[in-house]
């Protein structure tokens, strides 16, 4: 294989001789230091191969051996180049390929972030960008040490950050910090008071003195656990700490107006395409300002390879002209919308399985659908306040 490649570059020819004394020709060739191979005799004809550069020296030797010589085949780079000498485009394409390869190979095409669960990927990319990790940046100019040292300072939720360059992919690897447990400052004396009205179910005192019994009804602001503890040496002040679980009643009201305004599409959609390549964007539209109200929608069409998005593609921004139009909801539509909003508030306010729906009433009042729901809840109503202060009732 190696010898074939070595022959291809200088080029080689297949020669056929006829008549005369081919043995003498071959002996003269070897004596002259011309290497030949694949020598084959068939009846009166002898074929052999030699380097293209040696062909000229064959003529006088063939004449001396009284053989007629003919060129049968040509192989190798000089003949290939000669065949394509008029096709300049091939040469230009080859040169362009080399230039593009030299320009793009040392640059970052894809940035991947791995190892984060809580920290947003956008924040990590912003910190990495300050150290040269960005699409289109040169791979050899990455400040990896700087990122490792200063990255966790810039993003306190990370304990480690680094970047591993791999051909054209910069892989940002992070390890998130495990939060340290909160240290309770016991030097400030405090009371635990009730956050809202309720009936006590259970009290867990970890520090301080309990003031209420199970089953007792309390109002908002009642001291449940006090930091004033009587000792043999008199009253001592401690920080109160604990949980007080109580049965409470909560009410949620949701209002949905029947008359409302909504944007209605009117006119033709305007598309503004932008071609993106590495870190460069090429807008294919005039930069004229848009009039009136619009709904904006964006679609991205980028090349992908092995589940990676390559930095070459088109981003289409669609602008749909709209006008504000007054509309009226039916009572049924308003009720469905109100129930959706109520469910969202329930999920935000209550822990799962910690509440029970008591009543739910809906009515139309002054052009608005009002949905009111009451709940029986089991929740921790403990709130810590400094001794001597009362809970601000919100």
């Amino acid at each position, binding site marked *: 294989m190696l010898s074939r490649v070595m022959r291809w570059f200088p080029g080689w020819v297949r020669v056929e001789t006829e008549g005369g004394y081919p043995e003498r020709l*071959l*002996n003269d060739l*070897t004596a002259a230091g011309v*290497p*030949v191979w*694949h020598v084959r*005799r068939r*009846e009166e004809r002898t074929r052999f191969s030699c380097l293209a550069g040696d062909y000229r020296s064959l003529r006088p030797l063939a004449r001396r051996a009284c053989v007629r010589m003919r060129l049968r085949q040509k192989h190798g780079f000089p003949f290939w180049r000669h065949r394509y000498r008029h096709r300049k485009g091939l040469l230009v394409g080859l040169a362009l390929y080399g230039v593009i390869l030299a320009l793009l190979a040392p640059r970052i095409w894809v940035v991947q972030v791995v190892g984060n669960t809580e920290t947003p990927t956008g924040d990590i990319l912003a910190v990495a960008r300050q150290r040269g990790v960005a699409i289109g940046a040169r791979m050899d100019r990455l400040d990896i040490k700087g990122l490792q040292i200063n990255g966790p300072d810039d993003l306190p939720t990370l304990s480690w950050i680094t970047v591993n360059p791999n051909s054209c992919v910069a892989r940002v690897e992070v390890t998130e910090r495990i939060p340290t447990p909160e240290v309770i400052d016991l030097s400030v004396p405090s009371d635990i008071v009730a956050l809202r009205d309720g009936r006590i179910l259970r009290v867990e005192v970890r520090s301080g003195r309990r003031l209420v019994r199970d089953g007792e009804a309390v109002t908002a602001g009642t001291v449940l656990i006090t930091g004033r503890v009587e000792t043999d040496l008199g009253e001592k002040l401690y920080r109160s700490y604990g949980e007080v679980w109580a049965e409470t009643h909560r009410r949620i009201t949701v209002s949905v107006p029947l008359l409302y305004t909504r944007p209605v599409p009117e006119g033709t959609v305007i598309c503004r395409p932008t071609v993106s390549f590495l870190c460069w964007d090429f807008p294919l539209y005039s930069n004229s300002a848009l009039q009136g109200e619009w709904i904006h929608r964006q679609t991205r069409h980028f090349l992908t390879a092995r589940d990676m998005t390559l930095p070459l593609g088109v981003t289409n921004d669609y602008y749909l002209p709209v006008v504000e139009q007054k509309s009226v909801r039916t009572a049924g539509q308003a009720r469905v919308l109100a129930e959706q909003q109520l469910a969202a508030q329930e999920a935000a306010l209550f822990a799962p399985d910690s509440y029970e729906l008591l009543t739910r009433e809906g009515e139309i009042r002054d052009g608005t659908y009002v949905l009111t729901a009451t709940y029986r809840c089991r929740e921790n109503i403990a709130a810590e306040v400094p001794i001597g202060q009362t809970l601000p009732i919100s």
Partner: protein
Amino acid sequence: MGQKGDKKRRESSGGGFFMEVEGNRRVILSGCCGIQAYAEDCICLRTPFGAVTVYGEQLEMGCMTVDGATVIGRLQRIEFS
């Protein structure tokens, strides 16, 4: 001393001529001096101590240089004369 030793070794091994046979498919001859006769079924090569003739079918000289030659094909017999 070294030159004398080389000469002695060369004489004892046939004047620098070596022959390597790979099955009945290939013969590598090193130190041959040229071709005496060349036909489709017979190739006769000159060596320092005489001629070596390789008989067979579809014979071909795989490579031929000033140092030696390679004969490829279906070899049937080799004669020394």
